[in-house]
């Protein structure tokens, strides 16, 4: 698919979503993806604000086993798919992955995407000696790749295995997503898109609309509404990290 077509499709989806803002099928049932329309953009000169906290709600009931469209979309968007020809599969970066779960006692299965959980209290930020791991005021956890010394302590500390180390020289990077050999990286919640008022690539590409993105601090946002209405869990809730990504159905 050419870049133009891609753009048009995304614009179309974006506009469609804007039109459908707040659409409900029945009282209390919000249509995911369609309802989360308004991601307000942030002018470049304006700093990220703690008035917002970006988050995601993943519905594992909708997430299909074997489908990895979110993974493909993330890799294409951020340029980490097929970018490390020399690295072994264990060494290649994976910002998002599909995880298959089977309960040992009951046998119940689940499928869901795992990525950086954008914790309120991120262990990666705690341990980073140089402040390269950081949390933006709006809750997005990032690595400043100009400041990362490649010590990998954040990878030791992250309980979600969300981070990847770049084992080789990279070429043909995406202009909006600089990356580099010897540094650590992870899901940025598509910060470049969010700042432009667009949703993360994985959210947009999920055919089941299983991922809802929005401002957790805005009580009127679809994600905040859904979180008050439905049971949801944080992965490793016991650690008290308060991730910005929550899951339904597990």
């Amino acid at each position, binding site marked *: 698919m050419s870049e133009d077509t891609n753009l048009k499709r995304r614009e179309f989806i974006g506009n469609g979503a804007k039109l459908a803002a707040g659409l409900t099928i029945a009282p209390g049932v919000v249509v995911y993806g369609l309802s989360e329309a308004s991601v307000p953009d942030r002018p470049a000169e304006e700093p990220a604000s703690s008035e917002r906290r970006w988050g995601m709600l993943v519905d594992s009931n909708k997430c299909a086993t074997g489908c990895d469209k979110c993974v493909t979309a993330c890799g294409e968007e951020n340029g980490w798919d097929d970018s*490390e020809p*020399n*690295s*072994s*599969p*264990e*060494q*290649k*970066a*994976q910002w998002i*992955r*599909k*995880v*298959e*779960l*089977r*309960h*040992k*006692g009951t046998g119940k299965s*689940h499928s869901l995407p*795992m990525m950086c959980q954008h914790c309120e209290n991120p*262990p990666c*930020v*705690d*341990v*980073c*000696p*140089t*402040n*390269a791991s950081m949390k933006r005021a709006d809750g997005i956890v990032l690595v400043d790749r100009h*400041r*990362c*010394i*490649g*010590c*990998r*302590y954040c*990878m*030791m*500390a*992250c*309980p*979600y*295995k969300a*981070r*990847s*180390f*770049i*084992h*080789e*020289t990279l070429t043909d990077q995406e202009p909006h997503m600089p990356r580099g*050999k*010897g*540094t*650590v990286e992870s899901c940025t919640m598509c910060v470049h898109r969010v700042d432009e008022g667009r949703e993360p690539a994985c959210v947009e590409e999920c055919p089941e609309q299983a991922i809802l993105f929005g401002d957790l601090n805005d009580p009127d946002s679809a994600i905040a509404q859904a979180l008050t209405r439905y049971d949801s869990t944080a*992965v*490793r809730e016991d*650690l008290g990290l308060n991730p910005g990504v929550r899951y339904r159905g*597990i």
Partner: protein
Amino acid sequence: MKKTLYTQIEGGKGFWALLAGFGVVILAGLASMYYMEHNGHWVTGMNNSVVWGTPHVFAIFLIVAASGALNVASIGSVFGKKMYKPLAPLSGILAVALLVGGLAVLVLDLGRPDRLIVAMTNYNFKSIFAWNIILYTGFMAIVAIYLWMMLEKRFNKYSTSVGTFAFVWRLLLTTGTGSIFGFLVAREAYDAALMAPMFVVMSFSFGLAIFMLVLFASYRMTGRPLGDYVVRRLKNLLGVFVAGVLYFVLVYHLANLYATEHHGVESFILTSGGIYTMLFWVGQILLGSLVPLAILYNPATGNSRGWISIASVLVIFGGLSQLYVLLIGGQAYPMKTFPGYEVTSSFGDGMIASYSPTLPEVLLGISGFAIALVAVTIAVRHLRALPASLADGETDPHAA
């Protein structure tokens, strides 16, 4: 006891041969570092599951041993044991040298060693790594002053107070190193406050083993007398330290075995972990602890310097095994992201991670030892740090 006479070592052929030998190892380490940094770490055994590999095992071993090597000086200055006082300058020099060697390996294995200046100018004061940068540089400065106080007669009177400060600092330093792991909640094999005191006792043991080998070798090579009294005291102390480490290892595993949630990781390390299980039982417990204890306390071997040297080498091997099992085994065992579930993914979730050390990683690690030993050799050539004699008459207060 007589007044100790300290002298420099001679700078003859032996001195240069020693430097050349260590130099070759250092060059091999630097070449390995260049190879890994130029290509990127894909040429090493590390991956996104096992992110700290063999260089970290060596680096942390050397850093832990560094603080322990200072123990001999502390026993003299802080606890007033007269026999240890003549050994204090060598103890201080070895401590700084081992720390330099360990830090060199750590830094040269970074993804971006060229950005060391970033680490020096940007501190996150919540990071234990950042604390350690301060603890390590502070240690070098304090021990340097301590050495100055010991070697300059006019300042000898201050050596007890500076030595006490250095002793407290070294305890903090090893606490900091142990806490790199102890404060990590994500991984089951770590996440225990016990790591800090365990690392302190490990430092006593590893540091003394290296100290004894360096002492024996330097006295043998320079033809200086070394009496049995010093050797016997040191080897008995080493035995106590080895037993101390065993005690901490026992408590650590008992605590994990008691809690059902840790049975998985325990059975991995103790029974089903392949290389890690073998290194634990054969490397760490048998060869690294029980055999040295038997050698040191058996009268038939405990009085032989050859056997004591073998015991010291085994303690070092056991220490490296212990850190390999803890560091790499602890990462190889999968994190419990979803307790109660079987987990599979393309990123190794729920699976034992693979790691095989490569030659460049091993060479870089070994070069840390060579860096430390070159530093010691040069220091004892240029400083009057080694007593001319450690014969029984010089050191044993009960000798006739």
